[in-house]
């Protein structure tokens, strides 16, 4: 009993000392430091472009923030469901800031209650106080209220919508003109031109072709572009009766790759040559995948290695091993950080958009070439905006910047 009393006493002493720690720290003369003035003109507005679960609290700085007593350190924002209800602290912001965004979209349920959640069309009341660097709190500001409103359209994303519509219009125009028989010039790409030569080399040497789709999923655009080139390569290997090995690291990619190769063999008129075991799953882990593929390179000595898709740190390990194995190597990725490695270690590299454009280059279909033209024209517009933007910002005209700014 005595021990419990002593412990209780200790707890009381510790907690009271902690509570004292929160109080104002007296100055050297023993006088309590002055409290700052509270912020003024508090107002609450709906948070724009959301589903109706956020509010923005705004205020004018306390007269003692960077002026007057110059002792404001932070502002603390409080919220309540009614003007007379219990105000709960929602957060703090440093001095000089005049805005606090109160936003929590996580809808509560019976298992996970969320008191911070604000339903659509609910009204909330806010007040703010300033706290000095000596922990002295000001009086509360006046109470302001705001109602959450559901925004139907995200106005900050309108430039994206306009750009996408413009691009689609270009696509439709060029596709229809291509269908009418208009010839379209596309500059030659060394990497694409080398595809057929590389397949021919493998045939002459009697060695297989290794096709690596990278570590992306079937939803990655680069992997989809990789399937397109795989289709072409598999069709040629079927014609030349050359083996193509496709080790993959994702089961969905495996299914698509198997179907792509099978169809290519079917279209080449050699369905009997298709061996599903040449397109196989290795592992989903990055470096075990690299170890397996490197092993294949050093055992099989493929004549040609294709790297088409999403690559990360394994890009250089694969490409250098392929180089040691003496293979011709063609790479393509949209991972900017891996491009220098591929450029240094492989014979041909498709840089970013060239990989996406491969589909049009390889098929030479007018419709596909039309999409390349649409891309070029959109790029010209983007370039024009960059030049105009640079001029406008230099001249101090923010109109153009505001027009194209995306507020996510």
């Amino acid at each position, binding site marked *: 009993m005595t021990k419990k009393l002593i412990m209780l006493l200790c707890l009381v002493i510790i907690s009271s000392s902690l509570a004292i720690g929160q109080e104002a720290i007296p100055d050297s003369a023993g006088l309590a430091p002055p409290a700052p003035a509270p912020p003024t003109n508090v107002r609450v507005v709906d948070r724009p472009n959301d589903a109706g679960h956020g509010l923005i609290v705004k205020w004018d700085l306390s007269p003692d923030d960077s002026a007057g007593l110059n002792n404001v350190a932070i502002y603390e924002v409080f919220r309540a469901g009614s003007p007379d209800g219990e105000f709960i602290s929602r957060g703090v912001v440093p001095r000089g800031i005049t805005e606090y965004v109160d936003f929590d979209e996580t809808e509560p349920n019976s298992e996970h209650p969320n008191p911070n959640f604000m339903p659509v069309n609910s009204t909330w009341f806010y007040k703010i106080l300033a706290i000095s660097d000596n922990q002295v709190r000001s009086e509360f500001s006046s109470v302001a209220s705001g109602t959450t409103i559901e925004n139907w359209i995200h106005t900050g994303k309108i430039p994206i919508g306009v750009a996408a519509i413009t691009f*689609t219009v270009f696509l439709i125009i060029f596709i229809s003109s291509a269908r009418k028989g208009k010839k379209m010039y596309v500059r030659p790409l060394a990497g694409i031109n080398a595809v057929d030569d590389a397949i021919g080399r493998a045939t002459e040497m009697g060695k297989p072709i290794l096709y690596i789709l990278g570590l992306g999923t*079937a939803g990655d655009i680069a992997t989809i572009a990789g399937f397109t080139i795989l289709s072409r390569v598999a069709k040629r290997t079927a014609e030349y009766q050359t083996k193509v090995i496709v080790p993959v690291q994702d089961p969905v990619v495996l299914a698509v790759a198997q179907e792509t190769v099978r169809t290519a063999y079917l279209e080449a008129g050699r369905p009997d040559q298709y061996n599903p075991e040449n397109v196989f*799953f290795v592992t989903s882990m990055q*470096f075990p995948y690299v170890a397996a593929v490197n092993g294949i390179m050093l055992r099989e000595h493929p004549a040609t290695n294709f790297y088409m898709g999403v690559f990360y740190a394994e890009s250089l390990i694969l490409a250098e091993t392929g180089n040691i194995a003496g293979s011709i190597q063609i790479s393509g990725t949209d991972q900017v950080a891996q491009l220098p490695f591929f450029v240094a270690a492989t014979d041909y590299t498709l840089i970013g958009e060239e990989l996406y454009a491969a589909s049009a280059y390889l098929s030479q279909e007018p419709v596909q070439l039309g999409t390349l033209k649409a891309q070029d024209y959109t790029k010209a517009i983007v370039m024009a905006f960059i030049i105009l933007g640079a001029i406008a910002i230099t001249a101090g005209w923010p109109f153009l910047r505001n027009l194209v700014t995306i507020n996510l």
Partner: protein
Amino acid sequence: MKREIPLMIVMVTGIIMFLQYFFPGRFLFIPFISSEKLFEFLNDWVMVIGILSLPLGIWSLLKANVNKLKAADERFYSAILLMGFLVMVISGWMPEWRTKGVHLAIFQSVLIPIQSTIFSLLAFFVASAAYRAFRARSVLATILLLTAFIIMMRFIPMGPISDINNWLVEKILMVPNMAAKRAIAMGIALGATATAIKIILGIERTYMGRD
């Protein structure tokens, strides 16, 4: 119909995913359809498909390696793989082994060190690739070599060797290097958008197994 139905699913899903991006609240102003919930619902399907396809991957792996047991030159690797697979699956089923037993021991003492070893090869391959890339065989290669030398001097442990070196490296990285990176990024963004639109409109359909 075998091709039309998947194409229709792709088109409808693609258009829904594009439009929901612009509607923070109700999708297309339709009551009771939350844009966010719709997005989560469709993304959940991606996960469901991924999980359902996992047995396909495991089947492919086992089939390929069981067949390789017949080939004398690859028998050894396949046997090790199949043995490792069985040990990890069986030990993973035992709750007490999962946290403090064979399963964890193999993971921590075999798999992680092997992965680190493969990753560490990168250091050597960077050196060999750099040696080939930086040989001064042409004017452009010489410029590349000089630029690399200036930048290396900034980042080696004893660098930067002077204030001029520091200033020059900052300029190289922030002006020509950044400009090239942004140009590539812009091309990638437009190319990805074009490919996405082609897929939604059904122009690009090689991912379905044919041109």
